[in-house]
């Protein structure tokens, strides 16, 4: 009896799965090409005003080791949303931030969770690895994504609906090499990077390629793993023995602070050159900022800049959360404003636009058309006249900064 029941069940399940397989393939193909029809079908109200409520999702690490970036992004997006919601009652943004613990699997879960919430577009993900996984899903579902800080190339590669607000890793690596070569900062270069980290390895790979092209001499390349970032004497000694006069550090600020400290103990004083991950070193607790004197970094955002927009953002952030925002936060603040600007531009060009109830795939095609339209440019905290190419990469000028008397000073 038992066997009969079992075999019946087995056969039933197989038959069922066969039918299910057949039907599940249909919606995927239609979703991909309904975009053109959707753009034409938008209602034209005639007054050029943007109205309705946009469901905006944020995905980032709100807990775990990378939480400092995720929370800053979520908080800054919240500030930008509050500012936009205060402008007029006609257009509102509903924000929903979900945690991904800097893990691809959790990030895809967070993405599906947002889909259940009827999200219309996503600001995220904050970190590269989760972003690659989510952008693949978003690409097949046709959800528009603008990432504040996922800088890997694989995030946007082959995906027309994913855009970056930060520089991509290759851009940072090659811009650094170009900067060093143009300003003749060093002749013998040493690199210390984290070979357990996608961000650091990505920048190093393009830096090395560009340096070879420009004829910069890399005399020493040393690495450290993620879980053992405390002692750098071996790496520094190798750089010193090789006679390096500039050390390139494509790493985050915590290990960088230890490198500066240990180099000073060794009595070794080359020029240190960092990238945007170095931002935050001056606010690190227990770090003697005099060690960072003369450190050069390429970063798009400086929290103590004196322009009105930055001052406004930083004071609001400090009032609300009691901290100084980092560059990730500024990127997220810009992301929300860029989306707002894009929707406004579309509304103005099409005689008004009501966002409420527009499906994510329709909105995706609309935003892609605005971003790649050629005449879309936004001024933000992290750059002036930001534009995007069809590959999803941002075009803005990197700012070279030098640390003098415990503060960032522009190099240009």
């Amino acid at each position, binding site marked *: 009896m*038992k*066997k009969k029941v*079992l*075999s019946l*069940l*087995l056969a*039933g*399940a197989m038959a*069922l*799965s066969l*039918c*299910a*397989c057949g*039907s*599940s393939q249909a919606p995927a193909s239609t979703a991909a090409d309904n975009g053109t029809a959707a753009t034409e079908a938008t209602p034209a109200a005639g007054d050029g005003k943007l109205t309705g409520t946009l469901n905006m999702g944020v995905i980032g690490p*709100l*807990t775990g080791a990378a939480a400092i970036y995720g929370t800053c992004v979520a908080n800054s997006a919240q500030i930008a949303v509050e500012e936009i919601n205060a402008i007029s009652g006609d257009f509102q943004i509903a924000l929903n931030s*979900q*945690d991904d613990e800097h*893990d*691809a*699997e*959790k990030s*895809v*879960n*967070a*993405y*599906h*969770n947002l*889909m*259940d919430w009827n999200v219309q577009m996503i600001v995220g993900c904050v970190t590269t*690895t989760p972003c*690659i*996984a989510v*952008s*693949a*899903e978003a690409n097949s579902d046709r959800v528009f994504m603008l990432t504040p800080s996922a800088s*890997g190339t*694989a995030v946007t*590669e*082959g995906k027309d609906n994913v855009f970056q607000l930060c520089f991509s890793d290759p851009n940072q690596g090659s811009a650094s090499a170009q900067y060093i070569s143009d300003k003749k900062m060093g002749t013998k270069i040493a690199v210390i990077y*984290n*070979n*357990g*980290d*996608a961000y650091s*390895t*990505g920048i190093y*790979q393009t830096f*090395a*390629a560009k340096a070879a092209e420009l004829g910069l001499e890399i005399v020493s390349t040393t690495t450290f*793993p*993620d879980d053992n970032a405390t002692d750098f004497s071996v790496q520094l000694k190798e750089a010193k023995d090789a006679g390096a006069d500039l050390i390139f550090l494509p790493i985050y600020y915590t290990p960088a602070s230890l490198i500066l400290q240990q180099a000073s103990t060794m009595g070794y004083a080359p020029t240190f050159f960092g990238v945007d991950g170095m931002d935050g070193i001056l606010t690190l607790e227990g770090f003697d900022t005099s060690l960072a004197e003369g450190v050069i970094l390429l970063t798009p955002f400086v929290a103590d800049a004196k322009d009105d927009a930055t001052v406004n953002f930083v004071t609001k952030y400090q009032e609300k959360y009691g901290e100084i925002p980092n560059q990730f936060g500024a990127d997220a603040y810009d992301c929300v404003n860029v989306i707002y600007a894009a929707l406004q531009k579309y509304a103005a060009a099409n005689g008004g636009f009501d966002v409420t109830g527009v499906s994510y795939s329709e909105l995706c095609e609309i935003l892609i058309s605005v971003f790649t339209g050629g005449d879309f440019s936004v001024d933000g905290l992290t750059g002036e006249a930001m534009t995007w190419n069809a590959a999803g990469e941002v075009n803005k000028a990197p700012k070279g900064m030098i640390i003098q008397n415990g503060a960032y000073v522009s190099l240009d």
Partner: protein
Amino acid sequence: MKLLSKLTKNGYQNYIIVILFFAVFQILSSTGHISNSLKGQLVPIVVYVIMALSLNLVVGISGELSLGHAGFMSVGAFTGIIVSATLQNSIPNGSIRLVFAIVIGAVFAGVIGFLISVPVLRLNGDYLAIVTLAFGEIIKNLLNITYVGLDSKGLHLSTKDIASMNMKPDGITILNGPMGALGTVKISTFFSGIVLLLLVLIVIQNLVASRCGRAIMALRDNRIAGEACGLSATKYKMIAFVTSAAIAGSAGALYGLNYSTLVPKKFDFNTSILILVFVVLGGIGNMTGSIIAAALLTVLPEMLRTFRDYRMLVYAIVLILVMIVTNNEKARDALTGLLRRFRKKSVKEGTANE
């Protein structure tokens, strides 16, 4: 059919649970009555159930604590990704490619499991646990420096960087060191996962019920007595360990091909512990328990998203409560009493109907 019924006579309730699970979710998803959130988790659930079953074979049946199971999973995952990428042009059909990826992933993980088991199984108890932990970390760190590329000439391997692979310009990088696999074509499906799960159940339950399985359990219960009876402890423990590693590898291949990116860092100590938690919560040696615990505990953190920042705290509290309840005599008696009453009732109804 006769062979199938013979193979599935042990622990048949587990097959029924799995098939029912599949049927229910397949009906729900084809009629659209399932949230995106749950739908996206179906494959990970199956993967973690297989992982829990595989670890239960070592921990529950063989009685050795392994803390490096994520290592075998990662070997299977990255092997599967490489196989799938290599065969992309020659086998366009995703399902067939997935079968190749899972089989080769399982074989590789089994081989690594065999190599590791040689030194590891000379130890026992806590020492063995620590050494498996170390091997798990070693596998992770080796994968962190592995670069694999593919061009028209074939596969290239390097432990330094992409440039040193000397690929032709048409070459693509499959594994990029710490960045892991990028741009994997997703071919895992819920159906293929369920088929794999049923196969794994057949393998494990028949192994446990065989002469070999009885020897493994005898050595678990009393190693000295078992050896005195002429059983080779190393041989039987190795059978359990290598089978378990191969199964973990197959689960890894299914997992790796379900996401478009995968980093070696994912398979750290925490993942190994997570799987051990499934096994312990489901009951060590209890396969049905492993299935249910792994499925529920995979979904639970997503269910708790409403608690926002406190969800992992709530998750921990739920874990502690379940541990207390399942180990408390009174609570267990109450639960079994309830079950018995329910069973009696259904038996009575059954006779009344006849």
